[in-house]
């Protein structure tokens, strides 16, 4: 049975650079995918492009391509990435420049466009997901709207002999499923096989999260070599089954446990995982250890693709102000609580209007809030006081001036607050938020264009 080996070179925009090179040099792969576009990243990129025309693609695009392009071109490894962000055409031009500089004349780079639906979404009546209202009812200006595209334009680019395919917003698994559809000729209405392909893409898209990253818990789940974590590759067969592994000798591990955690990562109903190309069903996925650092994946299915695509809408929402300061030694917790009370009073006295405020103690209740005393085996007071804590005050405001006030009222604890407050830090910023809506598939027009080095 025909097998394709496909690697995952990045799981988010800021991810490590070298593991992708290790995959290209030693992974014996034919494709290398890079997933670098989180929910908000494209809105930030759109904003960057407004300030700097020609920009708007991933800030690490150049570094990643400088690292792998020559090796990939030399070995015929084709690259698929969403590092085009808000500007796939600009990204393709940049990759072509790098290719020419490195003597890779003739390298063919495809840019996928059509995910930008700002015009459609601002002109129409689009209900928000997860909260009431429509896109038009958002308080701040809308600056981006990008639909999650599926595999079709990427497959078109691969058929067009692209060595590198650079996209904007596409569904993350599509970056990995598109090469499979292309190589195996999977029909785009074979929901069962597309469900299996989605499983493979989903397992690969977060890179190191399936090879031991985001996993280690000393004494319970030990992982060796995280400083040189190897990124995953999958050997995929034409029937959609696959084996997940990594380059021998790299750090990390591929085990049933790492694969189970990643299979369920960011999943809601496992029988209905909505993708642009299929509604995938992960409930029948089978995982089996198939040798050292090798896990065999089979099963998975799907039903017909949805008629709408998810759209991430970026808009300016509000302002956020924050301040932090630390206390240590006996009584640190009591001094921290006093500090929070002082800031609470000061924000009232000075008339800072905030629609939402958090007063919390890092090391005590910042992550699990109040927690549940019962579930922690008794009242919080039963636990010994920590010998160092850090307080944090964060608030949402309508003006930048008020956001600044929040951090200032924490910082002034230096000379006006409890004894021994140190390491104050503050920030104030505008919030570029992302909400989601759905767009009918028929309103999307994708295009593929080519740059040749």
């Amino acid at each position, binding site marked *: 049975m025909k097998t394709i080996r496909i690697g995952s070179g990045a799981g988010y925009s800021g991810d490590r650079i070298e593991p992708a090179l290790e995959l290209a040099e030693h992974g014996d792969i034919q494709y290398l995918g890079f997933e670098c576009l*989180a*929910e908000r990243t494209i809105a930030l990129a759109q904003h960057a492009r407004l300030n700097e025309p020609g920009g708007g693609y991933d800030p690490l695009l150049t570094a990643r391509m400088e690292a792998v392009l020559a090796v990939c071109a030399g070995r015929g490894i084709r690259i698929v990435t969403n590092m085009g962000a808000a500007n796939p055409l600009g990204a393709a031009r940049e990759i072509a420049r790098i290719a020419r500089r490195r003597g890779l004349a003739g390298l063919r780079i495809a840019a996928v466009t059509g995910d930008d639906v700002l015009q459609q979404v601002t002109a129409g009546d689009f209900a928000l997901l997860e909260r009431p209202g429509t896109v038009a009812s958002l308080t701040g200006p809308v600056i981006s709207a990008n639909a999650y595209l599926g595999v079709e334009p990427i497959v078109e680019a691969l058929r067009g002999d692209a060595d590198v395919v650079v996209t904007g917003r596409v569904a993350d698994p599509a970056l990995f499923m598109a090469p499979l559809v292309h190589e195996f000729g999977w029909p785009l209405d074979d929901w069962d096989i597309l469900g299996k392909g989605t499983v493979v893409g989903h397992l690969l898209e977060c890179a190191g999260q399936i090879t031991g990253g985001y996993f280690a818990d000393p004494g319970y789940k030990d992982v060796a070599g995280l400083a040189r974590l190897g990124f995953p590759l999958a050997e995929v067969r034409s029937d959609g089954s696959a084996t997940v592994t990594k380059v021998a000798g790299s750090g990390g591990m591929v085990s049933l446990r790492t694969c189970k955690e990643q299979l369920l990562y960011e999943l809601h109903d496992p029988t209905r995982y909505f993708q642009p190309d299929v509604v995938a069903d992960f409930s029948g996925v089978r995982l089996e250890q198939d040798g050292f650092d090798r896990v065999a994946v089979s099963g998975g299915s799907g039903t017909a693709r949805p008629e709408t695509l998810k759209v991430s809408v970026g808009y300016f929402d509000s302002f956020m102000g924050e301040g932090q300061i630390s206390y240590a030694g006996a009584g640190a917790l009591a001094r921290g609580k006093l500090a929070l009370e002082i800031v609470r009073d000061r924000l009232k006295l000075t008339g800072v209007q905030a629609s939402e405020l958090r007063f919390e103690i890092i090391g005590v209740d910042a992550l*699990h809030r109040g927690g549940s005393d019962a579930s922690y085996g008794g009242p919080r007071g039963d636990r010994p006081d920590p010998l160092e804590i850090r307080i944090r005050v964060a608030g949402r405001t309508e003006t930048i001036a008020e956001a600044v006030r929040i951090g200032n009222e924490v910082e002034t604890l230096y000379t006006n607050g409890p004894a021994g407050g140190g390491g104050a830090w503050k920030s104030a910023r505008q919030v570029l938020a*992302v909400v989601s809506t759905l767009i009918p598939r028929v309103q999307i027009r994708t295009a593929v264009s080519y740059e040749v080095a």
Partner: protein
Amino acid sequence: MKLRELAHARTGDKGNTSNISVIAYDPGDFAFLREHVTADRVKAHFADIVRGTVERYELPSLGALNFVLHDTLGGGVTRSLSLDAHGKSLSGCLLEMDVPDTQHPNGEVRR
């Protein structure tokens, strides 16, 4: 006994919704997890965090439960005031949940 003794967990986020997988170390403990780690208990455990509903999905072939926590991330990672806007640390908080001591098939009592 803490849930941590029986299961591992991972948090993911999409918009304002968090999901936490709870996966039995020993698939033989799946029925025990299904009995004791209910959607109601998870909602109570995160009483100060979850503002929406909690749904539970079962994946017996993986020995896993998947919890979906709606309206949990302060408006989502892009808007949340939380120190951990993604809610990635919630998996560790969930493993602090108390479950009854259980006898392992080999006779050893785990607590």
